[in-house]
């Protein structure tokens, strides 16, 4: 986990950035760049493009910091929203031209899949067979949320990360985790508890990832009139 010794609040730093303070901009960069980069890499699987998107996102902050209003949401939520839009734009651009893929399932007439098809297939694998395929925007949103949450988990100390992954990915109980890792049960509980408390705070900074109402509005089964008419997709 990155140690951030600067205790100034993001909103204070954003005000400094709006006034052209490079040093404050770099504090914000150091604080949030890893989460942004990791989230985009997990979505796109491409470090070079992720680096470009992170740079563009922070440049947008530099240019528009005066428009940031902390009452409307956290700065990391704002940065993630910018990165998300650019990453999904990149996927859409990719989807307009075929990409090589190693997945041996039916694609287009040439047996190829575009980037959004790949996301759709991944989602169907997760949802399981027989589940109706979601529309590409929903799939992209879901994958983005997964990428951000996994990146938040990756910020945890290794021992806390292990406990969370074994509980949520492997479905083990606290006692089973203790047995698997050879830790006392109390240690497992305290590490899991610390990790969950950290993740809860982190997730609260990005309410769109956990807001069921927002998720419902993006759900393709929701009537079109109930969905966002602007702002959530290009």
């Amino acid at each position, binding site marked *: 986990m990155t140690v951030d010794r600067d205790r100034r609040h993001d909103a204070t730093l954003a005000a400094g950035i709006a006034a052209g303070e490079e040093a404050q901009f770099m504090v914000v960069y150091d604080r949030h760049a890893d989460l942004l980069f990791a989230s985009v890499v997990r979505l796109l699987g491409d470090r070079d493009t992720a680096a470009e998107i992170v740079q563009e996102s922070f440049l947008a902050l530099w240019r528009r910091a005066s428009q940031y209003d902390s009452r409307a949401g956290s700065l990391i939520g704002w940065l993630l929203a910018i990165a998300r839009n650019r990453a999904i734009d990149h996927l859409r651009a990719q989807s307009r031209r075929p990409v090589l893929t190693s997945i041996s399932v039916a694609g287009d007439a040439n047996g190829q899949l575009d980037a959004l098809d790949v996301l759709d297939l991944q989602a169907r694998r997760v949802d399981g067979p027989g589940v109706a395929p979601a529309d590409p925007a929903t799939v992209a949103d879901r994958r983005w949320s997964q990428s951000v949450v996994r990146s938040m988990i990756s910020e945890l100390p290794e021992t806390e990360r292990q406990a969370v*992954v074994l509980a949520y990915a492997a479905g083990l109980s606290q006692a089973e985790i203790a047995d698997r890792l050879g830790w006392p049960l109390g240690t497992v509980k305290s590490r899991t508890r610390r990790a969950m408390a950290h993740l809860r705070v982190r997730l609260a900074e990005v309410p769109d990832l956990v807001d069921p109402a927002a998720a419902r509005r993006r759900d393709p089964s929701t009537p079109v*009139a109930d969905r966002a008419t602007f702002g959530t997709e290009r």
Partner: protein
Amino acid sequence: MNPMDHAEAHERIADLAIEPGRLTALAASNVPEEEALLAHISGCPDCTAEIASWRETHDALTAALRRPAGPQGLEPDGPASVEPIRAPAGLRDGMLAAVRGAGIAVPEHVAVVRPPRRLLRPALLGMVAVLALVIAGAGYRLQDERLQAARAEEAALGTVTAALDRVLASDTFEVVPLRRPDGTAAGSISWSRQDIVVLTAALEPPMAGQEYRCWLENEGQRTPIGRMEYAGDVAFWAASLDEWATISIGPETRFGVSLEAVAGSGGSPAVLDAALGS
């Protein structure tokens, strides 16, 4: 069953939160201690909110870490990969260089005004040009502060013009009238999927210590989204997709402007509003 006090309930909720699914299964539990917790929660909004928050965390983790039903290795990253990924060290230097090259924080869309193609745009561009001429002509007699303020107004008007240009040039856009409380029209709100522009000449500039705030209201809940700015007598607010990306509009969503104390928490009656879903 002994009643459970608030501190004990919070402690118990945190204990349950570390086991995936325990909070979800709480309602059906017949464990005495959990029944006591349920009894406490039923009369405690704070604990109810606490549980809802933990459930959201639980749902987000479950969605992020569940494994696909099919074979592994589909994603380049691996479906449950949570290994740390750090931004490349060189990116930081590149970032600093890019920022120095970008100069001070100037709204980036000022430079992308396109030739006017609709009636509204020439009018706005004319306003920018007039303001620029005023600044040029008055350059010698204006004090520094006034000159800077005029330049800021010019830049702001350029920003709103560019945003409106993008809205009107997009394939699909909406324009809805802003209305006073008595129902009379007093400006407009225009938006596309990329931009939103609010324009009105009906707002007197706020007194010192006050500001006009913009908000969205859904089911009685207001979400602040910005504050009105001024260029001459025109009050405006413009935002691009990046700022709007986490805000959703439904059929009942209402946009409003209210006059608030700068340090206040908001909630004053709307002085202008618009039904966005109509």
